[in-house]
């Protein structure tokens, strides 16, 4: 079942913060976050495994609430380079026998 991402789109000024949410109706084993710019490959941002951990690097971090089957991606002090479409990909099985199920994406536009 496809995870639901919100918001669908967001426009920010450079330096503002953003939160992108991803929720699933099924129990999740892991959540993967990617950013894709138009015409380019999705670029891996981070992976969160079952256990409710929070990860981050630079000004991008994410959390995984295992009980709620939700993950959130936090973009702090956004930069122009953060523009793109953000996808969460979820893995249900954990046994390594299947791929990711992606949400429809969140379009992020950063204006100067």
């Amino acid at each position: 079942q496809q995870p639901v991402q919100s918001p669908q789109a967001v426009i920010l000024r450079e330096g503002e913060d953003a939160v992108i949410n991803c929720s699933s109706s099924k129990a999740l084993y892991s959540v993967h976050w990617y950013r894709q710019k138009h015409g380019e490959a999705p670029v891996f941002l981070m992976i969160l495994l079952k256990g409710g951990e929070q990860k981050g690097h630079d000004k991008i971090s994410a959390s995984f609430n295992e009980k709620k089957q939700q993950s959130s991606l936090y973009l702090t002090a956004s930069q122009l380079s953060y523009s793109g479409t953000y996808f969460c990909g979820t893995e249900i099985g954990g046994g390594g026998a299947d791929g990711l199920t992606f949400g429809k994406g969140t379009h992020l536009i950063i204006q100067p």
Partner: protein
Amino acid sequence: GAGVSQSPRYKVAKRGQDVALRCDPISGHVSLFWYQQALGQGPEFLTYFQNEAQLDKSGLPSDRFFAERPEGSVSTLKIQRTQQEDSAVYLCASSLRWPNTEAFFGQGTRLTVV
């Protein structure tokens, strides 16, 4: 190169033609995935290989779609008798080991069926 390489980047096929899309994963990556991405949508899972074994092909939309990875490295996605609804970007991704690690995507092949 160091990344996942896909060829061709663009393919125009006449309806009814067969096409073959190639994926060169990152050297040493055991796991390989194919995804289909329609315009404005997220990637949709097609199939998954671990080495040469196809562990999951549940996402292949019809029996016109066939994927192989005979030597556990390069993979080919073949679409027979292409139809207009097959038009999409086909993405390949590879992972050192799966699950629990990141998967890296190639730039994809944009297939247009006319």
